[in-house]
Protein backbone atom coordinates (compact mmCIF):
# COMPACT_ATOMS: atom_id res chain seq x y z
CA UNK A 1 0.00 0.00 0.00
CA UNK A 2 2.75 2.37 0.99
CA UNK A 3 4.66 1.56 -2.16
CA UNK A 4 1.69 2.37 -4.35
CA UNK A 5 1.14 5.74 -2.66
CA UNK A 6 4.81 6.57 -3.05
CA UNK A 7 4.77 5.73 -6.76
CA UNK A 8 1.66 7.81 -7.36
CA UNK A 9 3.21 10.73 -5.53
CA UNK A 10 6.37 10.47 -7.65
CA UNK A 11 4.42 10.42 -10.87
CA UNK A 12 2.45 13.47 -9.74
CA UNK A 13 5.62 15.45 -8.94
CA UNK A 14 7.18 14.56 -12.28
CA UNK A 15 4.11 15.72 -14.10
CA UNK A 16 4.27 19.06 -12.32
CA UNK A 17 7.92 19.56 -13.24
CA UNK A 18 7.29 18.75 -16.85
CA UNK A 19 4.24 21.02 -17.02
CA UNK A 20 5.92 24.22 -15.64
CA UNK A 21 8.19 24.79 -18.65
CA UNK A 22 5.47 25.08 -21.31
CA UNK A 23 3.55 27.58 -19.13
CA UNK A 24 6.47 29.92 -18.74
CA UNK A 25 7.42 29.60 -22.35
CA UNK A 26 3.90 30.49 -23.39
CA UNK A 27 3.83 33.51 -21.17
CA UNK A 28 7.10 34.84 -22.57
CA UNK A 29 5.93 34.29 -26.10
CA UNK A 30 2.79 36.20 -25.24
CA UNK A 31 4.89 39.10 -24.00
CA UNK A 32 6.82 39.10 -27.28
CA UNK A 33 3.61 39.25 -29.29
CA UNK A 34 2.27 42.17 -27.26
CA UNK A 35 5.59 43.97 -27.60
CA UNK A 36 5.54 43.46 -31.33
CA UNK A 37 2.05 44.92 -31.50
CA UNK A 38 3.17 47.94 -29.55
CA UNK A 39 6.18 48.43 -31.77
CA UNK A 40 3.96 48.35 -34.81
CA UNK A 41 1.54 50.77 -33.23
CA UNK A 42 0.91 53.43 -35.79
CA UNK A 43 0.11 56.97 -34.83
CA UNK A 44 -0.55 60.19 -36.63
CA UNK A 45 2.86 61.81 -36.72
CA UNK A 46 3.73 65.33 -37.86
CA UNK A 47 6.39 65.42 -40.58
CA UNK A 48 10.12 65.72 -40.13
CA UNK A 49 10.16 69.18 -41.67
CA UNK A 50 7.87 71.59 -39.91
CA UNK A 51 7.68 75.24 -40.84
CA UNK A 52 8.35 77.70 -38.09
CA UNK A 53 4.77 78.89 -37.91
CA UNK A 54 3.38 75.34 -37.89
CA UNK A 55 5.42 74.15 -34.90
CA UNK A 56 2.69 74.92 -32.39
CA UNK A 57 0.16 73.05 -34.49
CA UNK A 58 2.53 70.09 -34.66
CA UNK A 59 3.04 70.25 -30.91
CA UNK A 60 -0.70 70.07 -30.37
CA UNK A 61 -0.85 67.02 -32.65
CA UNK A 62 1.92 65.30 -30.71
CA UNK A 63 0.19 66.01 -27.41
CA UNK A 64 -3.25 64.81 -28.42
CA UNK A 65 -1.91 61.70 -30.13
CA UNK A 66 -0.07 60.81 -26.93
CA UNK A 67 -3.26 61.24 -24.95
CA UNK A 68 -5.21 59.09 -27.39
CA UNK A 69 -2.81 56.16 -27.49
CA UNK A 70 -1.14 56.21 -24.07
CA UNK A 71 -3.53 58.12 -21.85
CA UNK A 72 -2.39 59.93 -18.71
CA UNK A 73 -2.84 57.14 -16.20
CA UNK A 74 0.86 56.56 -15.91
CA UNK A 75 3.13 58.89 -13.96
CA UNK A 76 5.46 59.86 -16.85
CA UNK A 77 2.64 60.03 -19.43
CA UNK A 78 0.79 62.46 -17.20
CA UNK A 79 3.90 64.56 -16.59
CA UNK A 80 4.78 64.68 -20.30
CA UNK A 81 1.27 65.69 -21.28
CA UNK A 82 1.24 68.50 -18.73
CA UNK A 83 4.68 69.74 -19.81
CA UNK A 84 3.67 69.77 -23.48
CA UNK A 85 0.63 71.81 -22.50
CA UNK A 86 2.49 74.25 -20.27
CA UNK A 87 2.43 77.97 -21.06
CA UNK A 88 6.21 78.13 -21.07
CA UNK A 89 6.37 75.36 -23.67
CA UNK A 90 3.96 77.04 -26.03
CA UNK A 91 5.39 80.52 -25.54
CA UNK A 92 7.43 82.49 -28.06
CA UNK A 93 10.60 81.54 -26.28
CA UNK A 94 9.49 77.90 -26.21
CA UNK A 95 8.23 76.07 -29.24
CA UNK A 96 6.39 78.95 -30.86
CA UNK A 97 8.86 79.75 -33.64
CA UNK A 98 6.47 81.94 -35.55
CA UNK A 99 7.84 85.48 -35.53
CA UNK A 100 5.63 86.82 -38.31
CA UNK A 101 1.96 87.36 -38.43
CA UNK A 102 1.60 84.67 -41.05
CA UNK A 103 -1.63 82.77 -40.75
CA UNK A 104 -1.40 79.23 -39.54
CA UNK A 105 -4.27 78.00 -41.64
CA UNK A 106 -1.78 76.49 -44.06
CA UNK A 107 -0.62 74.03 -41.45
CA UNK A 108 -1.79 70.42 -41.87
CA UNK A 109 -4.26 68.98 -39.40
CA UNK A 110 -3.29 66.14 -37.14
CA UNK A 111 -5.46 63.52 -38.80
CA UNK A 112 -4.00 64.35 -42.18
CA UNK A 113 -0.53 63.33 -41.11
CA UNK A 114 0.40 59.83 -42.19
CA UNK A 115 0.73 57.23 -39.50
CA UNK A 116 4.16 56.27 -38.40
CA UNK A 117 5.58 53.80 -35.92
CA UNK A 118 5.80 54.77 -32.27
CA UNK A 119 9.63 55.03 -32.40
CA UNK A 120 9.47 57.48 -35.30
CA UNK A 121 6.71 59.43 -33.50
CA UNK A 122 8.90 59.93 -30.42
CA UNK A 123 12.00 60.72 -32.50
CA UNK A 124 10.21 63.53 -34.29
CA UNK A 125 8.82 64.91 -31.03
CA UNK A 126 12.34 64.87 -29.60
CA UNK A 127 13.70 66.74 -32.66
CA UNK A 128 11.04 69.41 -32.27
CA UNK A 129 11.99 70.01 -28.65
CA UNK A 130 15.73 70.04 -29.49
CA UNK A 131 15.05 72.58 -32.20
CA UNK A 132 13.36 74.79 -29.64
CA UNK A 133 16.26 74.44 -27.17
CA UNK A 134 18.87 75.31 -29.80
CA UNK A 135 17.06 78.58 -30.50
CA UNK A 136 16.82 79.75 -26.87
CA UNK A 137 19.53 82.03 -25.55
Amino acid sequence: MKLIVFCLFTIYCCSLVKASYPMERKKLQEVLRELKMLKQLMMNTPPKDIEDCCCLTALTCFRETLLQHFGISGKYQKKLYKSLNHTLTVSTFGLNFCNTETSTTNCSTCHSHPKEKASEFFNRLESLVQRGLSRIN
Partner: protein
Amino acid sequence: MMPTRLLLLLCLIGPVFAIEAPDVDCLIINLKNVSCTWNKKGTPKVNYTFYSSFFNKKEKSCPQYLTENNMNIGCIQPCESGDRFMTFNTRLVHGKDRFKETHGLKNRVKLNPPTNLTVLNGSDFNLWFYWNHTSPAHLHCVESEVRFRTNNNNWEFSKVSPEIQKYCINSPSGSSRYELQVRNRIVEGCGLSDFWSDWSEPVFWGSNSSIDSDSVPLWMTLLYVVGAITLILLVVMLLQRERLKIILIPAVPKPSPILHDIEDWFQLSKGLKENFKASYNEQVCPVREYNYVSQSDSMNSDDSTSSVSTNQTHCSVSIDVNDPEDLYVPLSSSSSQVPSEEVLQVSD
Protein backbone atom coordinates in the same frame (compact mmCIF):
# COMPACT_ATOMS: atom_id res chain seq x y z
CA MET B 1 14.99 40.23 -86.53
CA MET B 2 18.33 42.01 -86.68
CA PRO B 3 17.16 45.23 -84.97
CA THR B 4 15.53 43.14 -82.25
CA ARG B 5 18.73 41.30 -81.56
CA LEU B 6 20.70 44.52 -81.58
CA LEU B 7 18.30 46.09 -79.11
CA LEU B 8 18.53 43.08 -76.87
CA LEU B 9 22.32 43.26 -76.98
CA LEU B 10 22.30 46.93 -76.06
CA CYS B 11 19.98 46.30 -73.13
CA LEU B 12 22.32 43.67 -71.80
CA ILE B 13 25.53 45.66 -72.33
CA GLY B 14 24.09 49.05 -71.39
CA PRO B 15 24.20 48.68 -67.60
CA VAL B 16 27.88 47.71 -67.82
CA PHE B 17 28.77 51.07 -69.28
CA ALA B 18 26.37 53.07 -67.10
CA ILE B 19 27.87 55.54 -64.65
CA GLU B 20 27.74 54.38 -61.06
CA ALA B 21 25.64 56.67 -58.84
CA PRO B 22 27.93 58.79 -56.67
CA ASP B 23 27.37 58.66 -52.94
CA VAL B 24 27.00 62.19 -51.55
CA ASP B 25 28.16 62.65 -47.98
CA CYS B 26 27.33 65.94 -46.24
CA LEU B 27 28.51 67.52 -43.00
CA ILE B 28 27.65 70.82 -41.30
CA ILE B 29 30.81 72.70 -40.37
CA ASN B 30 30.59 74.92 -37.31
CA LEU B 31 26.84 75.49 -37.94
CA LYS B 32 27.82 77.95 -40.67
CA ASN B 33 28.57 75.87 -43.75
CA VAL B 34 27.51 72.62 -45.36
CA SER B 35 30.26 70.55 -46.92
CA CYS B 36 29.29 67.75 -49.29
CA THR B 37 31.66 65.34 -51.03
CA TRP B 38 31.07 62.56 -53.54
CA ASN B 39 34.49 60.98 -53.87
CA LYS B 40 34.02 58.24 -51.29
CA LYS B 41 34.28 55.58 -53.98
CA GLY B 42 37.16 57.34 -55.67
CA THR B 43 37.68 60.41 -57.85
CA PRO B 44 34.65 60.71 -60.17
CA LYS B 45 35.30 60.28 -63.85
CA VAL B 46 33.06 63.16 -64.86
CA ASN B 47 32.51 66.66 -63.58
CA TYR B 48 29.19 66.91 -61.84
CA THR B 49 27.12 70.03 -61.22
CA PHE B 50 25.86 70.19 -57.70
CA TYR B 51 22.50 71.60 -56.56
CA SER B 52 21.14 71.58 -53.03
CA SER B 53 18.42 73.01 -50.85
CA PHE B 54 17.02 72.78 -47.35
CA PHE B 55 13.34 72.15 -46.83
CA ASN B 56 11.15 74.98 -47.98
CA LYS B 57 14.10 76.98 -49.37
CA LYS B 58 15.08 77.68 -52.90
CA GLU B 59 17.45 75.28 -54.61
CA LYS B 60 20.89 76.75 -55.25
CA SER B 61 23.84 75.72 -57.29
CA CYS B 62 27.16 75.23 -55.62
CA PRO B 63 28.99 78.50 -54.93
CA GLN B 64 32.34 76.82 -54.23
CA TYR B 65 33.48 73.43 -55.49
CA LEU B 66 36.11 71.23 -53.95
CA THR B 67 38.37 69.76 -56.60
CA GLU B 68 40.86 66.93 -56.95
CA ASN B 69 42.85 66.34 -60.11
CA ASN B 70 40.76 68.99 -61.83
CA MET B 71 37.59 67.11 -61.06
CA ASN B 72 34.76 68.33 -58.83
CA ILE B 73 34.65 66.12 -55.75
CA GLY B 74 32.64 68.26 -53.35
CA CYS B 75 30.86 71.50 -52.57
CA ILE B 76 30.84 73.89 -49.61
CA GLN B 77 28.11 76.45 -49.09
CA PRO B 78 26.81 78.60 -46.26
CA CYS B 79 23.83 77.66 -44.10
CA GLU B 80 21.98 78.80 -40.98
CA SER B 81 22.30 77.19 -37.57
CA GLY B 82 18.68 76.00 -37.54
CA ASP B 83 18.81 74.45 -41.02
CA ARG B 84 20.21 71.19 -39.68
CA PHE B 85 16.75 70.24 -38.35
CA MET B 86 15.40 70.30 -41.92
CA THR B 87 15.82 67.74 -44.64
CA PHE B 88 18.70 68.56 -47.02
CA ASN B 89 18.18 67.71 -50.66
CA THR B 90 21.08 67.27 -53.06
CA ARG B 91 21.21 66.78 -56.80
CA LEU B 92 24.20 65.84 -58.96
CA VAL B 93 23.84 66.47 -62.63
CA HIS B 94 26.00 65.43 -65.57
CA GLY B 95 24.37 65.61 -68.94
CA LYS B 96 21.27 63.51 -68.73
CA ASP B 97 22.36 61.81 -65.53
CA ARG B 98 20.67 63.11 -62.38
CA PHE B 99 21.25 61.70 -58.93
CA LYS B 100 19.02 62.88 -56.12
CA GLU B 101 19.48 62.25 -52.42
CA THR B 102 17.94 63.45 -49.16
CA HIS B 103 19.93 63.89 -45.98
CA GLY B 104 19.14 64.36 -42.30
CA LEU B 105 21.88 66.61 -40.93
CA LYS B 106 20.67 67.22 -37.36
CA ASN B 107 23.47 65.15 -35.83
CA ARG B 108 26.00 65.49 -38.64
CA VAL B 109 27.68 68.53 -37.18
CA LYS B 110 31.35 69.21 -36.54
CA LEU B 111 32.25 72.40 -34.72
CA ASN B 112 35.50 74.30 -35.12
CA PRO B 113 37.98 73.81 -32.27
CA PRO B 114 37.88 76.31 -29.39
CA THR B 115 40.02 79.43 -29.72
CA ASN B 116 41.84 81.92 -27.51
CA LEU B 117 42.98 79.23 -25.11
CA THR B 118 44.78 81.04 -22.29
CA VAL B 119 46.24 80.09 -18.92
CA LEU B 120 46.34 82.14 -15.74
CA ASN B 121 47.88 81.53 -12.35
CA GLY B 122 45.00 82.34 -10.01
CA SER B 123 45.17 84.06 -6.64
CA ASP B 124 44.22 80.70 -5.10
CA PHE B 125 47.49 79.26 -6.49
CA ASN B 126 45.54 77.10 -8.94
CA LEU B 127 46.00 77.00 -12.69
CA TRP B 128 43.01 78.35 -14.67
CA PHE B 129 42.46 77.76 -18.40
CA TYR B 130 39.94 79.77 -20.46
CA TRP B 131 38.72 79.44 -24.03
CA ASN B 132 36.04 80.57 -26.50
CA HIS B 133 34.07 78.84 -29.21
CA THR B 134 33.33 80.43 -32.57
CA SER B 135 30.08 78.68 -33.60
CA PRO B 136 26.74 80.46 -33.44
CA ALA B 137 25.48 77.79 -31.02
CA HIS B 138 24.38 79.05 -27.65
CA LEU B 139 26.56 78.29 -24.65
CA HIS B 140 24.07 75.87 -23.13
CA CYS B 141 24.21 73.79 -26.33
CA VAL B 142 28.00 73.29 -26.34
CA GLU B 143 29.94 70.91 -24.11
CA SER B 144 33.73 70.70 -23.99
CA GLU B 145 36.34 68.11 -23.28
CA VAL B 146 39.79 68.88 -21.92
CA ARG B 147 42.95 66.85 -22.06
CA PHE B 148 46.17 67.75 -20.32
CA ARG B 149 49.47 66.14 -19.48
CA THR B 150 52.39 66.81 -17.18
CA ASN B 151 55.96 66.68 -18.48
CA ASN B 152 54.86 64.88 -21.66
CA ASN B 153 53.37 61.96 -19.76
CA ASN B 154 50.04 60.31 -20.64
CA TRP B 155 47.04 62.49 -21.39
CA GLU B 156 44.33 62.93 -18.79
CA PHE B 157 40.80 63.60 -20.05
CA SER B 158 38.01 65.53 -18.38
CA LYS B 159 34.52 66.59 -19.52
CA VAL B 160 33.40 70.17 -19.00
CA SER B 161 29.69 70.91 -18.61
CA PRO B 162 27.82 73.18 -21.03
CA GLU B 163 27.99 76.96 -20.43
CA ILE B 164 31.39 76.54 -18.74
CA GLN B 165 34.43 77.60 -20.68
CA LYS B 166 37.15 77.22 -18.10
CA TYR B 167 39.10 74.48 -16.42
CA CYS B 168 41.17 74.36 -13.24
CA ILE B 169 44.23 72.34 -12.27
CA ASN B 170 44.62 72.38 -8.49
CA SER B 171 47.95 73.19 -6.86
CA PRO B 172 50.21 72.80 -9.87
CA SER B 173 53.79 71.81 -9.34
CA GLY B 174 56.21 74.63 -9.98
CA SER B 175 58.79 72.29 -11.42
CA SER B 176 56.45 70.61 -13.94
CA ARG B 177 55.39 71.53 -17.44
CA TYR B 178 51.67 71.42 -18.21
CA GLU B 179 50.12 71.13 -21.67
CA LEU B 180 46.37 71.43 -22.24
CA GLN B 181 43.99 71.19 -25.23
CA VAL B 182 40.21 71.55 -25.60
CA ARG B 183 37.57 70.32 -28.02
CA ASN B 184 33.76 70.69 -28.13
CA ARG B 185 30.49 69.45 -29.63
CA ILE B 186 26.72 70.06 -29.51
CA VAL B 187 25.01 68.51 -26.47
CA GLU B 188 22.21 65.97 -26.62
CA GLY B 189 19.56 68.48 -25.62
CA CYS B 190 20.24 70.52 -28.74
CA GLY B 191 20.75 67.57 -31.13
CA LEU B 192 23.90 65.65 -30.22
CA SER B 193 26.78 65.95 -32.67
CA ASP B 194 28.14 62.73 -34.10
CA PHE B 195 31.64 64.25 -34.14
CA TRP B 196 33.84 66.13 -31.70
CA SER B 197 35.71 69.11 -33.04
CA ASP B 198 39.45 68.89 -33.59
CA TRP B 199 41.69 69.60 -30.61
CA SER B 200 42.55 73.24 -30.11
CA GLU B 201 46.07 74.61 -30.28
CA PRO B 202 47.90 73.56 -27.11
CA VAL B 203 48.77 75.91 -24.30
CA PHE B 204 51.74 75.40 -22.00
CA TRP B 205 52.59 76.41 -18.47
CA GLY B 206 55.66 75.84 -16.33
CA SER B 207 59.03 74.47 -17.26
CA ASN B 208 60.40 70.96 -17.51
CA SER B 209 62.86 71.41 -14.68
CA SER B 210 63.02 67.80 -13.62
CA ILE B 211 66.84 68.04 -13.33
CA ASP B 212 66.61 70.99 -10.95
CA SER B 213 64.07 69.26 -8.83
CA ASP B 214 66.36 66.23 -8.44
CA SER B 215 69.52 68.25 -7.69
CA VAL B 216 70.91 68.23 -4.18
CA PRO B 217 71.49 71.52 -2.40
CA LEU B 218 75.11 72.72 -2.17
CA TRP B 219 75.36 72.43 1.58
CA MET B 220 74.27 68.81 1.44
CA THR B 221 76.92 68.09 -1.17
CA LEU B 222 79.60 69.62 1.06
CA LEU B 223 78.30 67.66 3.99
CA TYR B 224 78.56 64.43 2.05
CA VAL B 225 82.12 65.23 0.98
CA VAL B 226 83.25 66.14 4.50
CA GLY B 227 81.62 63.05 5.90
CA ALA B 228 83.33 60.83 3.37
CA ILE B 229 86.74 62.35 4.06
CA THR B 230 86.26 61.94 7.79
CA LEU B 231 85.32 58.32 7.35
CA ILE B 232 88.38 57.63 5.22
CA LEU B 233 90.70 59.29 7.74
CA LEU B 234 89.18 57.31 10.56
CA VAL B 235 89.72 54.04 8.72
CA VAL B 236 93.33 54.92 7.98
CA MET B 237 93.97 55.88 11.58
CA LEU B 238 92.39 52.70 12.82
CA LEU B 239 94.62 50.63 10.60
CA GLN B 240 97.81 52.52 11.55
CA ARG B 241 97.34 53.13 15.26
CA GLU B 242 96.94 49.93 17.30
CA ARG B 243 96.36 51.87 20.51
CA LEU B 244 93.52 53.81 18.98
CA LYS B 245 92.12 50.59 17.64
CA ILE B 246 92.10 48.99 21.10
CA ILE B 247 90.41 52.05 22.59
CA LEU B 248 87.78 52.36 19.90
CA ILE B 249 87.29 48.67 19.24
CA PRO B 250 88.17 46.67 22.39
CA ALA B 251 88.70 42.96 21.94
CA VAL B 252 85.84 40.82 23.01
CA PRO B 253 86.97 37.90 25.25
CA LYS B 254 86.31 34.57 23.68
CA PRO B 255 84.52 32.23 26.06
CA SER B 256 86.26 28.85 26.20
CA PRO B 257 84.61 25.54 27.19
CA ILE B 258 87.68 24.64 29.26
CA LEU B 259 87.44 26.24 32.72
CA HIS B 260 90.46 28.37 33.55
CA ASP B 261 91.28 30.39 36.55
CA ILE B 262 88.95 33.34 36.46
CA GLU B 263 91.88 35.60 37.22
CA ASP B 264 93.29 34.84 33.79
CA TRP B 265 90.24 36.54 32.17
CA PHE B 266 91.47 39.87 33.39
CA GLN B 267 94.55 41.19 31.79
CA LEU B 268 96.34 42.11 35.01
CA SER B 269 100.05 42.69 35.53
CA LYS B 270 102.18 40.06 37.34
CA GLY B 271 102.73 42.18 40.44
CA LEU B 272 99.02 42.77 40.78
CA LYS B 273 98.36 39.06 40.54
CA GLU B 274 100.93 38.29 43.32
CA ASN B 275 99.28 40.75 45.60
CA PHE B 276 95.97 38.98 45.27
CA LYS B 277 97.51 35.78 46.75
CA ALA B 278 96.98 35.46 50.54
CA SER B 279 100.16 35.27 52.79
CA TYR B 280 98.68 34.99 56.28
CA ASN B 281 96.27 32.79 58.10
CA GLU B 282 93.58 34.04 60.31
CA GLN B 283 92.34 31.94 63.18
CA VAL B 284 88.72 31.36 63.60
CA CYS B 285 87.28 33.61 66.27
CA PRO B 286 84.51 31.99 68.29
CA VAL B 287 81.78 34.32 69.26
CA ARG B 288 80.29 33.96 72.75
CA GLU B 289 77.27 35.45 74.41
CA TYR B 290 77.81 37.46 77.58
CA ASN B 291 75.19 37.72 80.41
CA TYR B 292 75.21 40.49 82.94
CA VAL B 293 75.42 39.36 86.68
CA SER B 294 74.81 41.78 89.63
CA GLN B 295 77.26 42.38 92.52
CA SER B 296 75.10 40.77 95.21
CA ASP B 297 75.00 37.53 93.43
CA SER B 298 78.73 37.57 92.96
CA MET B 299 79.32 38.09 96.69
CA ASN B 300 77.30 34.99 97.60
CA SER B 301 79.16 32.83 95.21
CA ASP B 302 82.45 30.99 95.88
CA ASP B 303 85.71 32.90 95.39
CA SER B 304 87.12 30.13 93.41
CA THR B 305 84.25 30.30 91.20
CA SER B 306 84.39 34.04 91.08
CA SER B 307 87.86 34.08 89.67
CA VAL B 308 88.03 33.96 86.05
CA SER B 309 90.81 33.49 83.74
CA THR B 310 91.18 34.46 80.13
CA ASN B 311 93.15 32.92 77.41
CA GLN B 312 95.12 35.48 75.48
CA THR B 313 94.71 33.50 72.38
CA HIS B 314 91.01 34.07 72.50
CA CYS B 315 89.63 37.22 70.93
CA SER B 316 87.81 39.58 73.30
CA VAL B 317 85.24 42.16 72.53
CA SER B 318 84.74 45.30 74.65
CA ILE B 319 81.13 46.42 75.06
CA ASP B 320 80.21 49.85 76.42
CA VAL B 321 77.97 49.80 79.56
CA ASN B 322 76.28 52.46 81.69
CA ASP B 323 78.22 51.66 84.91
CA PRO B 324 81.99 52.08 84.31
CA GLU B 325 82.75 49.71 87.18
CA ASP B 326 81.09 46.84 85.34
CA LEU B 327 83.47 44.40 83.69
CA TYR B 328 82.58 41.69 81.23
CA VAL B 329 84.77 38.63 81.24
CA PRO B 330 84.22 35.25 79.65
CA LEU B 331 84.16 32.49 82.34
CA SER B 332 85.06 29.33 80.45
CA SER B 333 88.40 28.48 78.83
CA SER B 334 90.13 31.40 80.44
CA SER B 335 93.69 31.16 81.86
CA SER B 336 94.39 34.64 83.30
CA GLN B 337 93.01 36.08 86.51
CA VAL B 338 91.16 39.31 86.33
CA PRO B 339 90.24 41.06 89.52
CA SER B 340 86.71 42.19 89.57
CA GLU B 341 84.15 43.18 92.09
CA GLU B 342 81.41 41.85 90.05
CA VAL B 343 81.57 38.71 88.17
CA LEU B 344 79.65 37.94 85.04
CA GLN B 345 78.28 34.53 84.46
CA VAL B 346 79.02 33.38 81.01
CA SER B 347 77.04 30.77 79.32
CA ASP B 348 78.42 28.93 76.39
